[in-house]
């Protein structure tokens, strides 16, 4: 009985969403093509009416999803849901096309606009080499410090964010859920957003960039580290417990030896990512090579921009190669 109600509700809301979305898309297209205007409330009411009408006459996308056994004998092209999915895809495509302002004509005919930056790439201005290298060094160190400062925080947090280490008590669960939630939340906020926040907080410059990357790295490493802990072999943990060791000794002697080399691998990988992100973060006030690139681009000094782009590419390439090599070695350890 309770289950039936749940399915009916799910079906209803799926159908409602489907019809409102469909009407919304059609309205957007009609508005785009013919300038047709309508109050938004009519879309909702219309969606509701269509949902009820079709559901009562037994035609429903939601029912197909939540009561799958009912219609399976029919070929998709003979069913309502088959056509509704096709219709959904078609309108979505058209709406997307107009929303994104896709324009292949511009792509093929307006190459001339990019001539400045292209010729800059092939004639980089080496006069600003020393200035650029200084900014680049700033970026690399910024990324390095962000990674280094993130390690101790992530290291300690990861133990409390590992399901297999946290006791299955209310406190244990609360700590686990809280840390996991914060890690996910902070990680889903892009470093670039953190950079905007910190450039206001501590002022524009590499320090703001470092803080931004550090916050993001703590969240990302906590997740990676704790997943590594959840994957360890439980045997040694049991064995060390059995010797009479206390919880902290178990962590130090049974857990840490198993995670140390994957931790190092993840950390180096993170530094690699941070160097790349440090450039972007520089664009919004995080200092370093990104900031320099932004300034030169705004001054339309395309030859300077060219040199900076080459330098960034070289550093990213070198970092990528060395970090891959080191990680390979660590995995073997």
């Amino acid at each position, binding site marked *: 009985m309770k289950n039936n109600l749940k399915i009916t509700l799910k079906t209803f809301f799926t159908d409602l969403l489907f019809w409102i979305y469909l009407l919304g898309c059609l309205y957007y297209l009609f508005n785009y093509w013919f300038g047709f205007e309508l109050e938004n409330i009519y879309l909702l009411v219309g969606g509701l009416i269509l949902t009820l009408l079709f559901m009562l006459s037994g035609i429903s996308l939601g029912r197909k999803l939540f009561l799958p056994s009912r219609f399976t004998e029919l070929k998709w092209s003979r069913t309502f849901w088959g056509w509704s999915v096709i219709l959904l895809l078609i309108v979505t495509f058209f709406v997307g096309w107009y929303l994104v302002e896709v324009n292949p004509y511009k792509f093929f005919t307006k190459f001339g606009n990019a001539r400045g930056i292209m010729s800059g790439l092939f004639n980089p201005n080496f006069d600003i080499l020393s200035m650029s290298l200084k900014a680049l060094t700033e970026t690399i160190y910024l990324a390095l410090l962000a990674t280094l400062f993130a390690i101790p925080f992530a290291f300690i947090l990861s133990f409390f964010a590992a399901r297999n280490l946290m006791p299955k008590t209310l406190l244990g669960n609360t700590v686990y859920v809280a840390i996991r939630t914060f890690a996910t939340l902070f990680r889903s906020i892009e470093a670039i957003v953190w950079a905007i926040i910190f450039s206001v907080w501590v002022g524009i410059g590499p320090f703001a960039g470092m803080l931004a990357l550090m916050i993001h790295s703590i969240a990302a490493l906590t997740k990676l580290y704790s997943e590594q802990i959840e994957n360890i*072999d439980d045997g040694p943990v*049991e064995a060390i417990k059995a*010797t009479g060791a206390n919880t902290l*000794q178990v962590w130090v002697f049974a857990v840490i030896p198993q995670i140390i080399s994957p931790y190092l691998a993840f950390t180096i990988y993170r530094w690699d990512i941070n160097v790349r992100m440090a450039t972007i973060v520089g664009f919004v006030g995080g200092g370093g090579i990104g900031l320099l690139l932004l300034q030169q681009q705004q001054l339309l000094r395309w030859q300077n921009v060219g040199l900076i782009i080459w330098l960034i590419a070289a550093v990213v390439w070198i970092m990528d190669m060395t970090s891959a090599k080191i990680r390979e070695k660590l995995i073997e350890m």
Partner: protein
Amino acid sequence: MKNIIETRDLHKVYASGIHALKGINLEVKEGEFCILLGLSGSGKSTLLRCLNKLIDSTSGEINIDGENVVTASGYTLRRIRRQIGMIFQQFNLIKNVTALTNVLSGKLGYVSLGHSLTFSYHKEDIDAAHENLKRVGLLNFANKKVKNLSGGQQQRVAIARALMQDPKVILADEPVASLDPATADTVMKYLGELNRKDNMTVICSLHFLSLARKYGTRVVALKDGKIVFEGSPKELDERKFKEIYGEDAEEVEIR
């Protein structure tokens, strides 16, 4: 001889609802070599892990050397655990560190946290670790990483680790199940020696009847979480055997 291990009406119900132990009354005397037999899933590992509280029992009593295990926690539990060495089927060593380091970790129950964190072991402990490695014939392997050792050697390292605890009791959960027959016998020989020479009480689950007869002084058989046979290995005849392992079992398959 006094009982060193006693359980009274011991039950274990897992969170999943499985009733793994259904009223176990076990008495093991000091110096016995007690073999646990039973089909896969009969509750052997569960029983062994309840004895040193690696898992919490649901009801019943456990006494080891006069101490109440069920209510023990904190320092008392550590003190109980450190006199119980444990050996596992999968050896459960730390693979990427040396044999010596693994053996030394057997002393953790005796040292303070601060001391162990500095990784500075007492000279006596290091000497003892070498001594124990020598006992299991692995002195030359002290500085080898465990993952480079064979299965039989790893199990001997595990025995040396247990010896570091100066245990009165050794719990062995299918210690030879992942070894070939010859290596299995060597490992059992070491356990037998600890039992006879050092007067350690051993409880060892096994699937090999021949080894049970060779090393055991007593056999306890479990079936569906209950004790279905208790007696000397000699009493374990064909009929008893079929009772434990089911009508279709033939002794050949577990010789």
